[in-house]
């Protein structure tokens, strides 16, 4: 049988796919606002570009499971080390074997960037050389750019809590979903939602602005207790009571805390952490609310409560739980 990379389609769809692959590749390398603009324009051109790119990206993302399975003690220095076991002469099979056993928590690129990732349900703490801490929540990937003049983190996916040691001459910035968050001495979380970015300020202050240089005017400085919800089009700021903020930070202790949370939202939260998915089959029950404290992995405990206390029907479908009346 021929190799899978040697008989790719050269049809019209194949040509679009080749463009999508080129964009996906460029995004792994040096990326800037101009490229982002160009890329956005290409995506917006036709739905065919979108689906081709989504499909390749999804397959490529699945490969990140290989990285995420590497678990070891956290690094404590900003400068990542090249893992010695990664000898390029021993290819795929050997790399996977080692990755499965778990050899190192981080990866380095030639340019000095370090990539940190967590698997579904996993959490990880990274301590930087300047004393700053980053806590990665479930299914998260971020890249720390090694750069002498600025400290920059790119949140590629998921959610992270940042506790930053302020340094006026070396500002700390987080880039996520087209926005730039600049620390002004602070503790905050950044979470990528399905369609928006959420930045929650716990302590100190931070500035959020669209990453495109032309949009600097639209920056907003957050105060403690404020949550910025940023979409491609706008940034909205909400104020949340301390209790609610505390509940939202419970993931840092491996907990989920619900307080008058709808079943739909609670199920979505659990699904962020577990392979076993909760599916709310009836729209009518999705709005019912629930309260309580759960371990992020305790899907069955949550299901039991729905079953026994709320009288809902729970059915297993494959690995998933389907909840209905």
């Amino acid at each position, binding site marked *: 049988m021929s190799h899978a990379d040697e008989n790719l*389609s050269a049809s019209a769809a*194949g040509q679009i796919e080749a463009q999508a692959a080129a964009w996906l590749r460029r995004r792994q*390398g040096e990326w800037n606002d101009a490229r982002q603009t160009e890329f956005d324009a290409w995506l917006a051109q036709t739905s065919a570009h979108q689906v081709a790119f989504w*499909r390749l990206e999804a*397959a490529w993302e*699945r490969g990140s499971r290989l990285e995420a399975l590497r678990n070891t003690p956290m690094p404590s220095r900003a400068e990542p080390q090249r893992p010695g076991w990664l000898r390029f002469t021993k*290819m795929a099979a050997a790399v996977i074997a080692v990755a499965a056993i778990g050899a190192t928590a981080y*990866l380095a*690129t030639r340019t000095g960037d370090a990539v940190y990732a967590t698997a579904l349900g996993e959490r990880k703490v990274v301590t930087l050389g300047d004393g700053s801490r980053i806590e990665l929540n479930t299914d998260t990937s971020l890249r720390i750019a090694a750069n002498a003049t600025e400290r920059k983190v790119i949140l590629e996916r998921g959610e992270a809590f940042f506790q930053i040691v302020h340094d006026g001459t070396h500002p700390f910035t987080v880039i996520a979903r087209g926005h730039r968050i600049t620390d002004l001495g602070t503790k905050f979380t950044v979470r990528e939602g399905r369609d928006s970015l959420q930045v929650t300020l716990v302590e100190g202050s931070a500035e959020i602005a669209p990453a495109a240089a032309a949009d600097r005017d639209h920056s907003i400085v957050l105060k403690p207790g404020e949550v910025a919800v940023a979409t491609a089009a706008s940034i909205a700021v909400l104020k949340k009571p301390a209790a609610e903020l505390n509940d939202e930070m419970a993931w840092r202790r491996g907990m989920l805390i619900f307080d008058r949370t709808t079943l739909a939202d609670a199920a979505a939260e659990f699904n962020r952490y577990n392979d076993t998915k909760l599916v709310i089959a009836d729209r009518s029950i999705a709005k019912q609310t629930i309260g309580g404290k759960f371990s992020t992995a305790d899907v069955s405990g949550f299901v039991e409560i729905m079953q026994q206390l709320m009288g809902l029907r729970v059915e297993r479908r494959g690995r*998933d739980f389907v909840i209905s009346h």
Partner: protein
Amino acid sequence: MAETPDSQRENEAVRAARAGMNTAEVKAWFVREVLPLEAALMQYLHHNLASGSDAADLRQDVYVRVCEVARKQPPDPVRPFVFTIARNLLIDRMRREQVVPIDAVSDLEALNIAIDMPGPERAVVARDELRRLQIALDRLSPRCREVVVLARIEGLTGRAIAARLGISEPAVSQQLDNGMRALAEVLYGEPSDLRRGN
């Protein structure tokens, strides 16, 4: 705490604004619900088309149409919806080309079996996923596999890979692009032996 009602109202307003399927939601839905059907879809398309590249074109048309409809109203269940669109596009194409294979009609009826089949199990334990990825990597040519592993697993840049392997940067780019396409083809487009074996 006096501000609780206000922030709740604001939260609700934010949630309400998200109710429709926007691009990000369509993307998540497409990756979660539609891509896992690709192996079955390709089997169906290959069976009804003369050439393989036609299948790739038609697959793209199916995905485009599926996402356009989903943007307005997410279909539930997804599988019959995807296959109905595939069938309609196939019929359109046959009409346009005025080439109707003798067995076309029976095949279209046989489709109903495909529609009724339960979807593949979506959740895959991490170890199975690793094995599947390994199988996918094994399907690449040796040079392409080298480049993909260095880029995906070791996180090297194109320049770094070129330096290591002693090939030009454009050559690395070409291998990487092909590798990305081939991975998608194997991971989504081909029926998984693992799935069948279990």
